[in-house]
Structures are given as C-alpha cells and as structure tokens.
C-alpha cells in the first residue's frame, strides 16, 4: 500500500523503531482483544509513545507513555504502525 507522507515522516512497524525514539501511533491491528487492551492503556492512533528497548530474539518491545512502561509482544508490535518524525 503506497501512501503519500510528508517528507519528514516515515511510517514503519513498531518493531523497526530504534531505541530512544519518540513516534506517533498511526495504525493498530484490527480485531482481537489486544486492540481494546492497548486502547485501555491509552495506546490509540494519534498518541505519541517512546520506544525504550527491544528485547533480543523477537522479544517484547518496551514502550513508555504518560510515565507508564508497557512491554508489547513482538507479534503484536509488528502490526502496530507508527510515524517516525
């Protein structure tokens, strides 16, 4: 799927974001309970999160928002799209 993005932004899966970077969530996987659980923690399209650490060997991705730390399984993080600014 090709989309026009502003030159400064790049849309990538959460698993491709380097540690320490702040990104904006743009797409969450459809369906399944995880979308609701993410939403319950405030992780919805439009929100900014900071990537803290990606555990090796396809481990969870640790992110931070509003001072809370959440680790997201690799399989789910792969399907969360974010904009790098």
């Amino acid at each position, binding site marked *: 799927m090709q989309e026009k993005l502003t030159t400064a932004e790049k849309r990538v899966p959460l698993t491709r974001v380097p540690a320490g970077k702040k990104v904006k969530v743009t797409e969450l996987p459809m369906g399944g309970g995880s979308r609701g659980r*993410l939403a*319950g*923690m405030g992780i919805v399209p*439009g929100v900014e999160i900071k990537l803290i650490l990606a555990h090796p060997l396809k481990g969870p991705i640790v992110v931070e928002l509003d*001072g*809370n730390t*959440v*680790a997201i399984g690799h399989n789910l993080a792969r399907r969360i799209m974010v904009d790098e600014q």
Partner: protein
Amino acid sequence: MKIVLVGQHNSGKSMVFSRLTGIDTIVSNYSGTSVEITQGMMKVNGLSFELLDTPGIYSLAWADGPSDLTRRAIMDLRDDDLIINVVDAGNLVRNLALTLELLELNLPMIVLLNQVDVAQSHHLVIDHQKLSEYLGVPVIPFSAQTGEGVADLHAVISKGSRLQPGSSPRRFLITSDMAACPCSPNCSGCPMGETASCSEQPVLDYYQQARCLAKQVILRSDNRPRGLQVLQDFLDKTRMGSLALLLLGLLGFYLLLSFIGWSEEVIVSLFAPIQDLIARIISTIVPSGFWHTVLSKGISEGIVVPFSLVMPAMLMVSFLISIIEDIGLLPRYAVLLDRVGNLFGVSGQAVIPLSLGFGCRTPAVVATRILGSEGQRFIVIALLSIVIPCAGTIGMLSSTIVAFDAYVPVIILSMLAVFLLLGWVLKKLYGENEDRIYELPPLRMPQAANVAKKIRLRFQGFFTEVLPLLLVLSVAVRIIIESGVLNRLHNLGSLTYTLFGLPPEAVIGVLLTIIQRYLAPLVILNLSLDPRQATIAITMIALSVPCLPVVVMTIREMGVKAVVKIVGVGFAVSLSIGFILNLVLPAIGG
C-alpha cells in the same frame, strides 16, 4: 446503599478495601491480583455499608475477563449507591482517563487520591481542591498504607450530599483551560490515523483531557529518578537489566533449595525430644502390641514430618514469592520469559501462576485468570497440576531424595523434560499465538506488614490442612504397613518390577499421590529401596496427578471435563516416566 471501589489496575483498591473494612485481601504489585469481587462491611459513624472490591479496569468500553465483572457491577448500581474511584496519584493521566469516563455515568462518586505517601516522597504535589472543582466530585487525598484520609472519607460519606457529579461545570472548565493543549476535547483537530474506529475516539478524548487535567493540577513534580526508580530504569530499560533479573531468579532458587536442606536437619534434631515424649506417653496409655506400634510411630511421624519437611519449604516459598510480588518483579519475569512462553503457546504472564504454584497450586489455579484465553489457562493448569512441585512437595521430595541417596540430576532432568514436552504437545492442541501485552508497575519497597500478612495467608493451610491430613494419613499408612497387607501384594511384584523396577508397595505409594502428592513419601520412607528404585519412585511421584484441592479448584474454574483430561494425562505421564526410567537407568552397581 452499596459502595463500590473502582479503579485502574494496581491503583490500590484492594489495599483501600482492607484499610476500610479490616478484611485481609491479597495485595500485590502487579495488574491482575484481584480476579474476583470481594465483599465487606464498612462502618461509618455507626452506620454499616456494603463495600465491594473489584478487579482493575482500564475503561468501561474495553472490559474483558475479570474486568467484565467490574463493568457489570457498575452497571448494576442504582442512583443511591456510591462509586469510590481509587486513583493512583503517581499515575494521574491513566487513572484520570477512567475517572472522566466514570463521571459520564452520573452516579454519586468520590475520588480517592490514593498513594499520596508515595507521591510525597517523590515531591509530587497535587492540587486536590482544583481537581475536585474540575471533576465536580469530592477528591480526598488518601493513603491505604498510612491511613491518611480515612477520617475525611468518613466525613464525606456521612454527609452524603453533593456526590452526584451531574451539576458540575467540569466539562466547561476543562474545555476552556485546554487552549494550551494540542487537541480540543472532542479531538476535532487531532491528526488521527485513518484506521481509528469510532469506539477509540472517546478513549483518545479521555486521555487527552486527562493529560490536560494532570498538567493543571500537578503543582510540583520532581522527575529526577531516585532510589528505586534508578533500579527500575536499569531493569526495564537495559539489556544488562534482563541478565540481572535472570541471575537473581537463579539465586532465589538456589537459596530456597539450600534453606530447605539445611533447615530439615535443624528441625529434626529439635523435634527428637518431642518425639521421645510422645512415644513415652503413648506407651503408658496403650499397652504394647499392634496399636501401640501404630500410634507411637504414626503420631510421632505425623507430627515431625510436616514440621520438618513441609513447614520450612512452605515458609520460605511464601516468603520469597511475597517479596518478589511486592517489589513488582513478577511482570518483569513475564517479559523476560515471553520468548519461552511462545514455545508453549502461552503468554509470559504464565510465569505468575506458575511461580505461585511453587507455593501452593490451589491459589495458582485461580491466578491463571490473568491469562488471555481458556486455551492458555488449560495449558498452564495442566503444567501446574502435573509438573510444578508445590512447597510441600519440594520439602517431601528433597527429604526422600536425601534418605535414599536418589539421583537428583535424573529427577530434575525428567521434570524439565516433561515440562518442555508436555508444554509443546499442549501448545499443538490448545495453544494460540495471541497478542501479549505486559504492564510494568513501579518497583516498590516491600512492606514488612504486608509481606507478613501474605505469608500468614499462604501458611494458614499448614495448620488447617497439611498438619491434620498428614497426622491422620500417617496413622493410616502405619496401619497398612503394620497389618502386613503390603506383604500380600508380593504376588503383584513380578508385574511392578517389570514395568517400573519397583516393589508393589512403592507403586501403592505412587498411587497415593491422588490424595496429596506430599503424602506419598510417607509410604516410600518406610520401605527399603535402593537409590535407583527411589529415583524412579520419586520421579513418578513428582510428575503425577493434581491433589484433591487442586482438582476441586480446577472443576470450579474450568469444569469437570478439563479435570478429567488433566488427571488422565497426569496418570499417563507418571506411569510412562516410571516405565521409561526403568528402561534407561543403568542397573545399580552395574
């Protein structure tokens, strides 16, 4: 009038409940501690109110599993009931997002700004009066730990008026003050992603409002990491932190096992005079003969065995688990073990019930509710029931191992192999690659009082269950042994020897595990087995069917069918491991 405690996960609802009712509840530092609604009575100026502690909830719109119980409890409320919204002062944004949502219900509500003791130590100052003006409901600074705010809460409840949020100008106030915020409250200006669905719009709104609100009511905060925060950053944010967690876990196991070995000797020697005394008393009452032997041996063993073999393990495991829980390490282990969990088709979260199982498997079965799906729960309960040794089992097993000089590596390797193999098979049957989300709570200093309370709760079973059961069964086992029934089994010997390399009496011991795994060694300890036979028997006992309390609990949680399957698999595992070990273990001295 009914009062319901509602709040985000880990905001302190259960601790507030204990503070207000005096009822002991399990309070731990991770999401998902409370999986059921607990009911209690709260006294305010001589009046009694029914108070409910509920599982944590993120949002009414997204309530699944235990949270759904909370949502339903809220929906059942009538206009004269009261919501006490427990808010973690140290995590305002997320907590206020729920508060704003709850206000929409237009039910009487009080906000408890909980954990202000922690906030104070972090130099966080919140203007609770301003917050109260915005929300249109009373906001009471509170600490479930110190008791601060209890009197204020009582005063507000007994006044009873002005709790309905409806009349408040809060929405207007928030909106008008939000000029500085990036989004307007209805989020018309928000650069939403194109897949955002309508149901998420309100969530985003609540969060945006909560962020604005938090900014305005936090008068002073000090973000410099300090003390535990430094440790937390190290554990959560660096790779070395993961390594440190792993080493710490191994150290914990080592400590546990060496403590059990060391304490047994001490306790046995302490109990020697008591045993003598019991034997002497019995010989004065009962003349020598069959009953004399049965009672003097049965009763003294029935008392010494629980104290020396079961008690130290139960105490130490309760202690270690409570500490690990209260510091907030369990979810961190869940993240660490996420990749191992994937092998079994379960979330790393499974580490919570599995590690609780090392204490006692019965509550661990209930704890599986924090897992996402029935399939995962079945896998974890099966692994718990069949493989994980509870504290009592660990104590009994280690003592029989020492008594017979059994091969420890063989037993441990067999247990690991069965754990992996069974997990893998169960994954093929029931596993699912469901998405994993782990919340990492702030690290906390464990509080001596809370740890002591949990050790007491977990250890109660020793006096109500372990001690009486072992005493009765110890006498029963003595009767069997002394009556010579076992000798009559000898013609079964050829069968049990070919299958497992064991005498029939030992197989009876193994079969006893149906009642309670840690009873079986009572029989075994009275037999003369060589190290090889003991190794086989102990492994068969270690890997077998769930004990009665676990069976009952599993029926409650998962239904009869699940239990039948688990017991069947347990028997199959136990018998096959005995059979296999008999084939592969080299004969003794050869």
